[in-house]
């Protein structure tokens, strides 16, 4: 039997969800340090979804999103995608660099800032994963796309070959003052890494 999110038992799911919580917490702490501002975070919602359903979270396949895509290599391999609805992308840029952007047009500076955010969040997420499991994990340089949710998500969907594949979506709401951001992290380990990950977490 192929091991994937669909056929995990409840204990395995709980451990992965807890990992999602801790990872998201560390990611937001990293952001707070970088901005030198107090950031409040709600308890992250961790859900297991089919890849083809993920775009519904953003209001459908045509809804514009920012997607930051990174590859994990080392003791575990797989992909991480950080997804932000457009409104959250604008608010996050406002937090980061000041000035609210009205339209969908971002300049080079904005794009590299978003890439860097994706890098920091995914990086702190994987370092908590590495710390908890004793695994060695490296993360690739991030790539960014701002486009329709369906189009952005077609990349991981195709890469995994079967639409039935499930992913873990960690939804994090955080805010600085009255600025609210809804960030979503998709964790998609390669099939062969899954067993390894569960073993390291002691729930194989």
């Amino acid at each position, binding site marked *: 039997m192929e091991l994937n999110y669909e056929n995990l038992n409840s204990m395995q799911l709980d451990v992965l969800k807890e990992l999602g919580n801790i990872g998201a917490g560390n990611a937001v702490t990293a952001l707070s340090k970088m901005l030198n501002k107090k950031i409040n975070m709600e308890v992250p919602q961790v859900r297991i979804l089919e890849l*083809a359903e993920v*775009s519904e979270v953003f209001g*459908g*396949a*045509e809804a*514009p999103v920012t*997607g930051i*895509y990174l*590859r994990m290599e080392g003791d575990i391999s797989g992909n991480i995608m950080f997804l932000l609805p457009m409104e959250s992308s604008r608010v996050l840029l406002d937090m980061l660099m000041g000035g609210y952007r009205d339209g*969908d*047009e971002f300049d080079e500076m904005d794009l590299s800032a978003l890439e860097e955010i994706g890098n920091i969040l995914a990086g702190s997420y994987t370092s908590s994963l590495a710390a908890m499991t004793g695994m060695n994990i490296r993360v*690739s*340089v991030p*790539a*960014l*796309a*701002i*486009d*329709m*949710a*369906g*189009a*952005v*998500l*077609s*990349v991981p*969907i*195709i*890469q995994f*070959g*079967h*639409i039935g594949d499930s992913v873990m979506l960690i939804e994090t709401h955080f805010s600085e003052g009255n600025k609210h951001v809804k960030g979503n992290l998709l964790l998609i380990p390669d099939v062969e890494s899954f067993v390894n990950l569960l073993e390291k977490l002691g729930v194989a």
Partner: protein
Amino acid sequence: MTVVMTKIGIAEVRAAKDPAVLVTLGLGSCVGVCLYDSKKKVIGMAHIMLPSSKEIKNNANKAKFADTAIDMLIEEMEAIGADRKSITAKIAGGAQMFSFKSSNEFLRTGERNVEAVRRELGRHRVEIVAEDVGGNYGRTIEFYSHDGSLSIRTIGHGTKVI
């Protein structure tokens, strides 16, 4: 007259008789293959994910692959009255959404999907009369049975009808 728009999801194939509109939202690296028999006014759309069913172990869903989905779509169109000799094609999609510094083979999927679709349509002697492929952006496509027109919407790259 109101015409119902039918959404075609990823790895789905659908044929329909006039009046009909077939729609795919947010096409990225996948390819939308739109076939039209102008005499019988039968349309068909396939939302193709991967180039070949022969490269993958888990290939039960024929609608996913260029080499099997196009066969399937032509058969479904024939079943509702189309004549394969008068079918023409329009294709859209096959974008490369992300550009990584180190380019992996999988990132070329858009391009590989387009190549495979062209090859398969050639094998069936179906002429491609119009196309809008490649680039690094997503597309929403709407295919109309009354005249075989294909409208393409993007974010920041305009709207067109081919």
